[in-house]
């Protein structure tokens, strides 16, 4: 990740910890968000979309699954689409 992407990824980690109750020490850049350990579901993805929109003004409505894979892919999507 670039320096900017890392900055965004760290903020996304904070947001996901706060809004989705994920233990901060478990939430690495790489861990799959929809895997067994964190276990996000469709309701959680709506929450992520709202958080990213609030924080960065980036709409992820209707975006495919790939950017939601982990914190790194979310950060890269935000970095690429931020206004």
């Amino acid at each position: 990740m670039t320096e900017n992407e890392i900055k965004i990824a760290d903020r996304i980690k904070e947001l996901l910890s706060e809004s989705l109750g994920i233990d901060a020490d478990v939430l690495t850049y790489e861990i799959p968000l929809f895997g067994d350990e964190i276990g996000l579901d469709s309701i959680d993805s709506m929450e992520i979309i709202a958080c990213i929109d609030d924080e960065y003004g980036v709409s992820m409505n209707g975006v495919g699954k790939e950017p939601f894979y982990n914190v790194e892919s979310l950060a890269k999507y935000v970095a690429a689409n931020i206004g």
Partner: protein
Amino acid sequence: MTENKNRCVVTGIGMLNAIGNNVDECWDSAVSAVSGIKEVKSVNSEGCYANLAAEVENSTLDDAKNASDMDRVSKLCVKAATEALSDSGIDMAREDSTRVGVIMGSCVGGVVSIENYYRNGESASDVTKMPISAIANMVAQECGAGGVVTNVANACAAGTISIAYACDLIRAGVGDVFVAGGADAFASVPYAGFISLHALDAQPCSPFNRCSGITLGEGSGAVIVESYEHAVARNAKIYCEVLGSGISSDAHHITAPRPDGEGQMNAIRRALANSGLEPKDIGYINAHGTGTAKNDEAEFLSLHTIFDETNDNLSVSSTKSMVGHCLGAAGAIEAVYAIKALTENKIPPTVGYKDEDMDRLHERAGKIDFRANVAIDKELTHVMNNSFAFGGNNASIIFSKEAGDVKIPEAKDFEPVYITGLGIVSPIGNGIENYIEKNKSGYRPTEASVHSTVDRTDYDACRLKMAFYRKLDTFSQLQAVSGMEALADAKLEINDQNATDVGIVVGTADGPISTVCDFQKDLIEKGNSAGSAFKFPNTVYNAAGGYLSICSGIKGYNVTVTNGFQSGISSIAYAYNVIGQGQEKIVLATGTDENSEIITELYGKLGCVEGNTDGAYANGNGFVLGDGSTTLVLESKSSADARGAECYAKVSGYGMTHACVKFGTVSGSEQALCDAVSIALKSAGLGIEDVDAVVGFGNGMEAFTRLEIGAYKNAFGEEKLKTLPVHTVKEVMGECRAASSAMSAAHAALMLSGKLDAEQNAYMYDGEGMKACSVNTEKYRHILVTSCAAGGSCCAVVIDKI
């Protein structure tokens, strides 16, 4: 045939919803296929994809005598209750008030007042209107009930479970007459919540048809249920019999029903079996029929699976298509519709089908008459009402023109009920061993507001994974940990063989009010289109019981009762009844309450949060506010014996009463508490001379101290009281509301089992006040556990040595 002493009958009905202000109007509109679904008026729908609701238009809601003390939900409830009482012709002046109770269901309680609190100056007067607890208290005040008064908070199944519980209490001999039902008001919290879940239909909901979401409604329903013998003795008009009910949990998902319909079918089959009926006997079902794809598909499956084989004459409809989904009122409103259908021999329709929908309906309906668009005359004998709620709670109840074949043991024939496991989450730490250590150490809290903590160590010990517990709010997390701890302590593994033999009764004073307030504050800041789909499922009071069912696999009875601090022991009384009446072998009875910044602020508004160092029976202005969760595993003797369970103690009886004092206060409840003690002792076959000790509810606040002393003087006499040790757990853990009242029972069980040191701190009355002392508890055999809610509801439970 059901023996007369086991017969419960409906002698009065009341109802209010978007298509009528009383039963006659609501019924006439329904059978004329009138829909009350319109554009929303009372909440802001800006930016929301759906803007329909079925709101009540009634200009007389403020006519109730205590209207200024009530949230809209209580006003709605009192309206239906008053109609039902008047319809029943009961003259309260001629009734023994301790035999008259109120059980009311609600999902969201006083959310209108929560919004008003945050929008209009955070006034203390809104605080006592917020909890669901207030609703039954307001109805009790209206009618002068002095018996069992409580609220069932099982979301969309609450109204149905309330009626079922009232009948169970009548059959247990606890009361003669109950006002039972439910109420909910339309408000921002449920509206924005269902918007966030994308569960609202943008068009009027279309159950069993388009199935693209719900439309919210509001209103209330009330029935007067009465023992047959009592109704006949006063020459009452009898609408119908209430036969058996069935209550189950899904152990599946916090908002979605099981796709295989297992939990729904368990509830329906239990209701049939408890009524002595077969599937072929049911002529009409008022279905849950919300209009969501998941509910309707599961319900189609459940009904076809149970009824298709033997029933060629079944009609089904969803009145939600006209009155919307009234949440905690739904079961009660639909019960009244089912009763009217039965007595009028007429089936109200599901509205909203277009010509082009009919082929699809016929295909999905099969041989069942899913009554579309127009009412039909039909001779009916037995009708059923089904409700399936958030949290995976299912309830089914049967009304009939015949007496059925209800076989429920009388209270005197109840099997003994043992306490076989404990789970403790408290501000002084978690687990039984920790509690025993802290009890030895003489620990006292040093702050005015104290908190329980659950962390990774607790979750790991309970084998709870982050993917599960991260979804829970603090209230549900406290409950999940204490519940799983209690199961482990009881050495009870839930598996396919025993899952339906185990139930849950959660008691809570304030439920998830903190989460509701948090959700509401977000709405005020960001608008109703921006509610959190993550938080919303946790705003229902029964989320904690639902999550416990999911993580433990428990599929039996599942109810959440809420009526102030005493909820933690009234849950034990409830569970004792469920086991005694043979509904379950094992029930987890709990007391759970959360203390957050929001809760401390709300209790602070009432002026009762205060560090107190003068002891439990001081004359302070407040108490140390705490939180936590206590779970007791209650188990029938035969079940405990069969699996060689270690037993702490035995639950031998209970008494529940109510004083019609102002909600939020206790002063004036002395006689009610005294009566609760007397009834509890009588039900346990004991006299006052048999009581070795009391575990009371002293929290340092003067009003509670005066209440306890006054009540015990009346109950035991001053001489006995001077030698009667009174223990309290609140001096150590703080006023943890339902958690500390359940802990009082756990403390009694720990003393009786010899797990605590024999020498224990206690208080003794010296003619002037309660004085601290140390007592030897080795010879204790019978302990009375007491509690009282701010609002006058009192409970006493007898715990005996085995």
